[in-house]
């Protein structure tokens, strides 16, 4: 499987694709700003940002969700995200 090849060049290639993905997700957040989505807009934008954070943590920081410390931080950030969403809806 090419994506699982561990050579340095393949790692760089994967990171390049991840970078393209992040650019595209940022673009999606920007184009959504031109639509009148009401209270759903901050929710969608926060979800996109959460996906970006997850991708960065997995691809660039090599954090695995199975790590204990990672689970704690995912829980804390999930809580912060939930509070932010509640504040948006309220």
């Amino acid at each position, binding site marked *: 499987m090419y994506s699982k090849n561990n050579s340095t060049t393949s790692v760089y290639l994967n990171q390049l694709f991840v970078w393209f993905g992040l650019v595209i997700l940022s673009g999606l957040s920007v*184009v959504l700003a031109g639509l009148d989505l009401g209270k759903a807009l901050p929710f969608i934008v926060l979800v996109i940002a959460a996906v970006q954070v997850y991708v960065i943590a997995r691809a660039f920081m090599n954090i695995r969700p199975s790590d204990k410390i990672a689970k704690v931080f995912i829980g804390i950030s999930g809580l912060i995200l939930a509070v932010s969403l509640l504040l948006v809806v309220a």
Partner: protein
Amino acid sequence: MDILDKLVLPQSLEHITLLHFLSVVALIVFIPYISMVLGGMIVSLYYKRKGTVKNDAQHTQFAKEVIALVTVNKSAGLALGIVPLVILLISFTQVYHLLNYTPVKFFLLAFVTVGIALILINVYRYSFVFKDILSSVEDTAGDNINGNVAADIRQFSPRISQLNDWTGKWGLGLLCVGTYFFVAGLTHAINAVDGDISKSLLGSLLSITIISRWLYFIAASISLTASVILFYYFYWDGGKKDVPKDYTESLKKQMLWLLFIALLALPFFILVNTVLLPASSLSLFVFAGLFLALLFIFLLYQLIYNMIKENHLKYVHIPFIFLLLAVIALALAEQTAIANTSLKNTLIQADNYNTLNSESTPTK
């Protein structure tokens, strides 16, 4: 389309300019990726058929490797294939607000068909892997396999083969339809003001302008795929080592010729499509982008001809890089043409925004 129309907020000039920049980014990501997948599917299905007819496992292995190479992984399909189309859809909804919704309708159709096609292509890719695993287990373990497992293998092997055939054909068919809708969306966007293309679905299906642009897209897809295969098999990480030498030799010749023939068609299509561009879309930057793309293509003719004639691979990495640069130049030219076409509408929208803004700002 009324729903999308009602969702659009009044746009400032700066926001519309930003939308054009983001559309360029989305096109630069989407076009090379979807071209590689389309060309890769054509090459993969051709070699799969060749492998079946000649009963040559090497061709079938190549078909499996090509599709794994061009699709990258499942997430790439989403991030580089689906999300850029969503960006284009939303961006064009805003840019073409008050003007013409035909491009948006075609992007919506492209989004649905390309989405289904990418799912089927990923199933095709993974069914290849499972097919090999099952036949390998059957061959190596033979009579030592547990009775139930042997029955499962006997039951699932033909089903996976059928799934592989079915998803391959339908995946390619739907991707062709999806890319046709995508090209139709772009063509309608360029011809929104003074073009003479029928706005109906049937009229668009039979439009010479759209058909010629789609053929141009197919030729570019095949050339880009051939260049990626050459790059991966003969340059990346020092070239692929686990392929028999005589097979790599024949592959080298076939891919160089495929690249050369597909590239020969490109200048003709670029010329035809430039002639068909409406007056409202033309500017110096459009011609500069087309000229740059042609320059890269003509430089490639020299290098590929030299490689075929002298039978060497000294420049094997260059076609991929030059073709990517040509695609970027063409995407820039395309988006500039779209920005030129929608300029008047952009100014109307910006004026509406300024009027609304001044009305809502309290006067002292």
